[in-house]
């Protein structure tokens, strides 16, 4: 049996760990609330926009805008959204699993240090990495989105896709891949996402194929399409942030509960060892008296 001093030392260290994880849980919980609110508020906008674009893809000629052109996919362009910090359970690992399933050649732009490390470690083609601060600002994300769009327009990559841990609820985050460009691929994915989020699918679009653009198609598309890409990536970044804080809170809660349980076991063991020690001493004293 371990000596009482060893057990006492372990109890102390477990107690410290519990205190830290408890504090981290509380911090994550408060950040989570904000992040979730931000992600959920923006969802309606992003979804409506994606839906609008999906309908649009049917109605315009591919030649009308560079974003609509379907090319032979040789290299996929993927924006990978992860967290900067660890200690958030299996969140990042699950996302990386999705990445390893991609067998076609792909180039990556990564938000978050964890993702950048993973891409570098597995010798994938990392184009650029960006930090993922706690305050996800539209301006920061715009830089990432515009970088990837530039790669797309210059022909370095033939698609723009996003992989991020999609926030479903506090306990579940689903790693998801969503294509952004070219637009024609958006529609198929959209239906899945919507049914998953528990939203009703809109009625089938009207049969007429004409669509009126004002002032004209080119200028509307020029304004709408870049905004669409920026907004979608921003929404996914917010979503990833909500996922991160949720995952961290859950992970920290589990760690705290484990520490509490371990503490109970250790205390029991310590008391047993202490009692055994006392019994031993009494026995020795009694034996000595008896002998005298």
């Amino acid at each position, binding site marked *: 049996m371990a000596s009482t001093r060893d057990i006492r030392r372990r109890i102390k260290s477990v107690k410290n760990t519990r205190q830290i994880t408890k504090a981290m849980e509380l911090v994550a919980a408060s950040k989570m609330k904000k992040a979730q609110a931000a992600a959920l*508020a*923006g969802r*309606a*906008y992003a979804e*409506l*926009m994606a839906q*609008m674009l999906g*309908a*649009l893809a049917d*109605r315009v000629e591919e030649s009308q805008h560079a974003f609509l052109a379907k090319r032979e996919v040789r290299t996929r362009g993927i924006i990978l959204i992860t967290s900067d910090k660890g200690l958030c359970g299996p969140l990042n690992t699950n996302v990386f699993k999705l990445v390893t399933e991609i067998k076609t050649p792909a180039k990556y732009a990564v938000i978050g240090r964890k993702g950048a490390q993973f891409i570098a470690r597995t010798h994938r083609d990392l184009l650029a990495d960006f930090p993922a601060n706690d305050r996800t600002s539209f*301006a920061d994300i715009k830089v990432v989105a515009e970088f990837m769009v530039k790669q797309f327009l210059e022909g370095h990559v033939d698609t723009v896709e996003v992989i991020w841990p999609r926030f479903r609820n506090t306990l579940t985050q689903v790693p998801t891949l969503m294509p952004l460009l070219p637009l024609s691929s958006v529609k198929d994915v959209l239906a899945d996402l919507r049914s998953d989020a528990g939203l009703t699918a*809109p*009625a089938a*679009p*009207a049969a*007429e194929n*004409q*669509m*009126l*653009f*004002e*002032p004209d198609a080119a*200028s*509307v598309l020029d*304004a*709408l399409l870049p905004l669409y890409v920026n*907004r979608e990536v921003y929404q996914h970044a917010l979503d990833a942030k909500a996922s991160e804080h949720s995952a961290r809170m859950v992970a920290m809660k589990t760690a705290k509960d484990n520490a509490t349980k371990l503490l109970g076991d250790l205390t029991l063991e310590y008391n047993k060892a202490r009692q055994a020690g006392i019994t031993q001493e009494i026995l020795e004293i009694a034996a000595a008296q008896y002998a005298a």
Partner: protein
Amino acid sequence: MPLTLEIVTPEARVYSDTIDTVVIPTTTGEVGILPGHIPLLTQVEHGELRVTKGNVTTWLAVSGGFAEVEGDRVHVLAEHAITEEKIDEHAVEAALKRAEDELKAAKDIDPQQYEHLQTLIRYSGTQLAVKRRRR
């Protein structure tokens, strides 16, 4: 057949209802939408958006974005939007003043910030116009 109107901003869903007609401010002037409109995609300008339902007309202040008409559904994606009764005149005036001061104070301000302030000022102006038109 009534129209379904949805006005959504990045912050929230501002308006969602079945309506009779809506007049949207666009870059090419005001566009009135009645049931049976052909599919339309247009750019929304800063301005006043009018919604008529029965005999009631609701006013909203909107700033830049897009509007889509498809079948009997009208979607408006705006940077900002607010219904008339929610506009707080004093708060808007204060915000307007702050933005103008900031614009004056800063000499070499970065273009993004400049654009943001401009949007804020124009949107504040629209809000005030909507609020005051009743008097």
